[in-house]
């Protein structure tokens, strides 16, 4: 039988920090299958981490999910373990990082503050809780430790929440905002293709044109076609599309960075309207 699943997402980067955490987990849970989701989350970007985790956990089997994007490490922010209705346990800082993923997994069934120092590494630093607290606790949980053992139950309503922006359907226009810039410079936008249909009327036929406006885009906006694939427009040309990686609307430039071209960053507001 396959060992328990531990998924792992951080902003630690490609160097040794995630490996050290894997080593800690394997010493406690040698049979665990550790699935690295990403360690290149934009540094300190709790929102980016929360979004990516929430988009990925639904594809994973039930398991323990450790996520660490933790600019407040060592301060008063609590380390928590959260059981989701689906049966998963999410482990990480109480800074909102885990909450969108918990919602995808059916919502929070129980939450515990992590305080049981007997589960931690012998020496806990104030700057690397990923290694010293979250990894060993996750490995113990994956090995079957009851959730109650990590520390006292806390009221789920007291957990720091984080809401991702949503698309707003208006008459003739979809008001949206940038959720995430991916490594290609594609911008994943709040909202679904259906929202664009409802706000602008008519189906999303490839080639249908929209005007995208925003503070960082020259006055008058930019004329962008709906397309199904990057290569449907010439290199250097923009498109609106359904993003397969992360689900939902996206804006991209074929073989270039939409973020650079249009001056987009996290939360940049944009308006999309149909061109008659």
């Amino acid at each position, binding site marked *: 039988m396959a060992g328990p699943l531990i998924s792992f997402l951080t902003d630690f*980067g490609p160097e040794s920090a995630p490996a050290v955490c894997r080593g800690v987990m394997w010493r406690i849970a040698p049979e665990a299958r550790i699935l690295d989701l990403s360690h290149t989350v934009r540094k300190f970007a709790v929102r980016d981490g929360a979004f990516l985790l929430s988009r990925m956990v639904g594809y994973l089997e039930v398991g323990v999910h450790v996520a660490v994007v933790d600019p407040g490490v*060592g301060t008063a922010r609590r380390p928590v373990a959260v059981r989701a209705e689906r049966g998963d346990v999410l482990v990480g800082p109480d800074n909102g990082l885990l909450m969108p993923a918990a919602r995808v997994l059916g919502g929070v069934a129980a939450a515990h503050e992590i305080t049981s120092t007997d589960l931690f590494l012998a020496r806990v630093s104030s700057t690397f809780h990923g290694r010293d607290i979250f990894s060993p606790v996750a490995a113990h949980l994956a090995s079957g430790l009851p959730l109650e053992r990590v520390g006292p139950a806390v009221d789920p309503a007291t957990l720091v929440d984080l809401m991702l922006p949503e698309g707003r359907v208006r008459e003739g226009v979809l008001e949206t905002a940038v959720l995430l810039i991916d490594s290609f410079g594609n911008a994943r936008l709040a909202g679904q293709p259906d929202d664009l249909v409802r706000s602008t009327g008519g189906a999303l036929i490839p080639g249908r044109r929209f005007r995208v406006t925003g503070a960082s885009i020259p006055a008058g906006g930019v004329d962008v076609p709906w397309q199904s694939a990057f290569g449907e427009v010439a290199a250097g040309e923009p498109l609106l599309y359904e993003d397969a990686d992360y689900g939902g609307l996206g804006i991209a430039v074929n073989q270039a960075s939409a973020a650079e071209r249009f001056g987009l960053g996290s939360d940049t507001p944009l308006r999309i309207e149909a061109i008659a």
Partner: protein
Amino acid sequence: MRPVITFLTDFGPAAPAVCRGVMFGISPDANVIDINHQVPRYSIRSGSRSLAFALQYMPVGVHVAVVDPGVGTERLPVGLKVDRGDVLIGPDNGLLMAAADTLGGVVEARVLENRELMLPVVTSSFHGRDLFSPIAAHLANGVPFERVGPTTSIDDLVRLPEIRPTVGEGVLDTSIVSILIFGNVTLAGTPDDLSAAIGELEPGRSLVIDFPAFDGAGPIQERTIWERTFGRVPVGSSLLMSDSEGQLSLADNQGDAARRLGLALDRPARIRAA
């Protein structure tokens, strides 16, 4: 239980896969843990620090490390058995010794000479693939350590000179020994060294760090404070702290101190009270 092989190099993103392929070909069940393949090129000292910090947290196993500017020269390829039971594999250039010390020290050293345990063709420029990886995989499979080659004197193994700070009258003279991924700058020495020089380190205490002109770069002065962790100072502000390895570290909260100040490895620094 699956045997553990850990793996650290300065190869960058592509070449390690070939080595993993060699290891998996010999030991298909091995759990190969990539520690770090972004060690600054040819920096034996950086590789040595990264390895020493990582191995104490790893399961007992075979640990391969290759930062090997002398590949193909007379430097010896070695296997080191340590007190904890692990075997470290790599070049005898000082890379492995600090890590071996964290695992209880070397108890037996052997030169890797047994051609039967290497790839059929051993090139003079890629021992990571041709020699270190296959030998590590054979050891992970249970081949006795004695089979790799003859013993060699532990005392003759190459050691890197240790970089230590100098405690002066009200000042600590130190230097940059590593720059980590978040741009945090590790300085030689511990909080004990600093308090020996300037007295007790209360959180919030103001400090000045002088980086004299170095290697074409002009002098830099950084005013900072002693704190326990990043979030104790405003975003973008710097702090001096004890990092997760107990070393002195200059960092910016949610920033990149090394880039902001233009700091590089080996640059001297002098810390004093403000």
